[in-house]
């Protein structure tokens, strides 16, 4: 692809071979483990696992997911007999709890721990140790410059170094002065330890977020409940329509608070063209009690504005209409009376209604049909709802009698009526026709099976109730992670070395070099700032306009060009004390240059 990659390949192929030959015979089981661990905690593996995680997350957005919507998954498998089952066996409907997805992120986090721990130890040591020894040739550093203190200023080399140390300390560097009384005193300075600290905090906090989320799943619970106006929910197991306990849930965790739905108001958009009739505000007035003996308190529950009660949060997640009906059976007794929750099907609260009347005698009764808040019949004789509000409410139903099958104990969906074993009474295609009811009207069923009255309409809301103890911790760790991230990206870790020496004519020569650890685009700016500070410290005269010296005074093409931001004077290499003294004074530096980063 690119020159870099090619270059890299060329270099690494023989190296790899050599490594493989060298390492293989020596690997015992322990060595193998160590080798595996090194591989797992390498940067390359982290990168690979990260990218793998991104790829692995994608199928969850392509296929329906069971935790979000189990019914859709069942339907999907039915609709795709050829591969629906296969996808299931690959856990593609449970991507985020699948073995393979878990394996990736667990490996990633193990790698993360394996990465963070040694780094933390190394960094702790680094923070307590002195800046690295002054390199022999400062001019090799990415930022390098020289200054000359005139002889009449009477600042000897040792004093110049301590002046530089002062300047650097003030600027937040940790400084060590070396060889202060020698011929070539120097100093090493370092700052920006918070960069690595930030990085470590960031990565550690990611583990914290993961653990908090997992803990929330273990100790939390959630559930749903539908409340018709006037209904009261009590926070006990039987109070829920559906309940999802966490693995470690105990029913004693439930605080028996209560919440009554007094009134539910919807505001519809009557202003805009495109969205006429769309709901723009939902507000449920509820009365809550912390416990059975506590004083009642009225609150407003809204979307985006949950009510918190007894360690849980209660969310408004749905709503609809509940027609109130009275059903008398063949014997003339009231077999059922009350609101029936109508399930939303289409626009403008076009909803389906299922009524099961197991108490009807002598035959159980069942009704299936629709509720329309503003009933209209189109040209094609299709009924639809023209508005979400109750301008022309209508119930249209078919009826059945027989055994509803409720006594067998198998759980049934309240929103579905299985008519297999039932005999139809009312339907469009039967002689008796379908049932159409307006509020206040009553229909008498054929064959003396009873009657149904449509008494009025109430509203209902659906609420989700959640208890998630991990949430707060997840938030705290997430905030920590961001703080760490910002530190790690914006603190710059820098090293500075300064060396001074006295020239034959009595001038004090100063050379300095800067090195960044990690990405640092402001290193040149720092070099310029330090230069200014040094000049002030030694009361050197103002320098000429920036840029003039560096371009013009460049002595030769061999000098590698430094980053251009480094203005005045960086090219005065020949004046450095070490260079100046070359031959006459031997510098006490070792054979290598500045310590390499990686």
């Amino acid at each position, binding site marked *: 692809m690119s020159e870099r990659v090619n270059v890299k390949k060329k270099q690494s192929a023989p190296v790899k071979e050599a490594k493989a030959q060298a390492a293989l015979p020596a690997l015992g089981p322990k060595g193998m483990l160590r080798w595996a661990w090194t591989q797992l905690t390498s940067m390359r593996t982290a990168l690979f696992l990260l990218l793998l995680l991104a790829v692995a997350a994608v199928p969850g957005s392509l296929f329906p997911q069971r935790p979000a919507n189990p019914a859709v998954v069942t339907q999907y498998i039915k609709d795709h007999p050829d591969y629906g089952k296969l996808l299931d066996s690959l856990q593609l409907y449970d991507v985020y709890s699948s073995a393979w997805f878990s394996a990736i992120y667990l490996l990633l986090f193990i790698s993360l721990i394996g990465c963070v721990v040694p780094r933390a130890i190394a960094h702790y040591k680094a923070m307590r140790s002195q800046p690295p020894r002054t390199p022999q040739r400062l001019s090799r550093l990415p930022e390098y410059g020289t200054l000359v203190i005139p002889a009449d200023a009477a600042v000897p080399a040792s004093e110049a170094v301590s002046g530089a140390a002062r300047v650097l300390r003030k600027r937040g560097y940790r400084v060590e002065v070396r060889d202060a009384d020698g011929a070539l005193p120097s100093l090493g300075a370092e700052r920006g330890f918070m960069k690595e600290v930030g990085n470590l905090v960031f990565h550690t906090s990611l583990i914290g977020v993961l653990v908090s989320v997992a803990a929330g799943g273990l100790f939390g619970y959630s559930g749903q409940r539908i409340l018709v106006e006037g209904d009261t929910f009590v926070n006990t197991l039987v109070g829920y329509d559906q309940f999802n306990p966490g693995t470690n849930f105990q029913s004693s965790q439930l605080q028996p608070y209560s919440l009554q739905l007094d009134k539910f108001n919807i505001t519809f958009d009557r202003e805009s063209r495109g969205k006429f009739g769309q709901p723009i505000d939902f507000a449920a007035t509820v009365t809550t009690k912390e416990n059975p003996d506590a004083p009642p308190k009225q609150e407003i529950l809204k979307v985006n504005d949950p009510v918190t009660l007894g360690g849980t949060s209660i969310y408004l997640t749905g709503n609809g209409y509940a027609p109130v009906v009275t059903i008398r059976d063949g014997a003339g007794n009231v077999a059922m009376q009350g609101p029936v929750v109508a399930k939303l099907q289409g626009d403008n609260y076009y909803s389906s209604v299922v009524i099961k009347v197991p108490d009807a005698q002598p035959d159980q009764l069942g009704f299936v049909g629709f509720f329309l808040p503003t009933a209209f019949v189109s040209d094609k004789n299709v009924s639809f709802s023209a508005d979400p509000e109750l301008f022309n409410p209508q119930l249209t139903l078919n009826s059945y009698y027989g055994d509803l099958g409720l006594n067998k104990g198998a759980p049934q969906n309240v929103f579905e009526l299985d008519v297999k074993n039932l005999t139809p009474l009312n339907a469009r295609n039967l002689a008796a026709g379908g049932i159409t009811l307006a509020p206040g009207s009553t229909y008498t069923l054929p064959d003396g099976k009873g009657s149904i009255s449509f008494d009025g309409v109430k509203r209902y809301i659906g609420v989700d109730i959640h208890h998630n103890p991990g949430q707060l911790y997840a938030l705290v760790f997430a905030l920590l992670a*961001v703080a760490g991230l910002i530190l790690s990206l914006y603190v710059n870790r820098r090293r500075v070395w300064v060396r001074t020496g006295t020239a034959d004519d009595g001038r004090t020569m100063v050379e300095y070099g800067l*090195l960044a650890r990690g990405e640092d685009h402001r290193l040149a700016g720092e070099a310029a700032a330090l230069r200014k500070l040094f000049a002030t410290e030694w009361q050197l005269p103002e320098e000429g306009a920036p840029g003039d010296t560096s371009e013009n005074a460049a002595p030769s093409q061999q000098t590698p060009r430094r980053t251009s931001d480094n203005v005045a004077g960086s090219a005065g290499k020949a004046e450095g004390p070490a260079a100046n003294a070359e031959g006459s004074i031997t510098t006490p530096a070792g054979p290598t240059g500045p310590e390499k980063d990686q």
Partner: protein
Amino acid sequence: MPFGINETMGQYSELFMLLAAGTYTVAFIAFAWDLAKSSKALRAVDLKAAQAGAATKVPVAAGVGAGSAGARLDGPADRAERPSSSAARTTGSGAGGVVTADGDMKYATERRVPARVAVALTTLAVLIHGAGVVTRALGAGRVPWGNMYEFLTTGAFLVAAVFLLSLIRRDLRFLGTFVVGLVIIMLVAASVAFWTPVGHLVPALQSYWLVIHVSIAVLSSALFTLTFAMSALQLVQSHRQKTVAAGGADKLGFMRLVPSALSLENLSYRINAIAFIGWTFTLMFGAIWAEKAWGRFWGWDTKEVWTFVIWVVYAGYLHARATRGWTGTRAAWLSIVGYLCVIFNFTIVNQFFNGLHSYSGL
């Protein structure tokens, strides 16, 4: 309660958007003209230089980078320690002429009239565009980012505005055709495919988190857009530098207006770092909002999945930059893949918000 709807304002807004799109189109032509003209001028200068036998340095005349003579390939200091960067270093200067523009992306003294015209036109367009965004907000009585149409129009405004702002510090005019072209595409897509009259927000969106979460998301996306452009150019430039270094013909003359691959990589890294922090906030605030609205802070729905994927890809990008053998071209690819995910996420949003319409259902 929401404020009232003002349809007249909405119509003004649409007029402004139209005018802005027109002005951007003229600006686009000016940027393209600048590219063509400058590359021609550069070629002429090269020719002269070659005839005069000037071997190493091209006289200061046309190129952006000419002011500082020669190709600048230095990046942040530590790059010099990476084996990969040394390869690029030799590539740039080896050809003997000005192969790429100044790596610092500072303005040169020489004037590029078409480019100046283009920037002036873009500024005008951004002002008109801004008026369009503001009138839209006034018309709807809320922040102008509540549906696809508004994400696109406001997002395009931010892309253009961020681009103009970055021009204050850096000479990124070489990105002009790309950025302005993209802004035009966004405006056209908004008006043609996603046009929506001013209206109220569905209750699910009525939250101050909409203001926080979406504004940061759009801003980060605008930054990712810039880095996408730079990474794409980086790939082209890196290929070109290699060809030229190997003595091949320079077929992409206009690319000499563009800085070296390494400079592009470094600048896009810095912008990506900012955008990544922004995206981290987007993700977190999204989770907090989801907790408020739906009672769970993370549920792996489509939108959340892709926001996560984008975050992980860019985290991968940041890691790549610190991994041997993954800097340069590969990192650029990651940046591009990340941006493609951003686009995908953005178009998926549409479906997502349709999903919210069934909000009143159970």
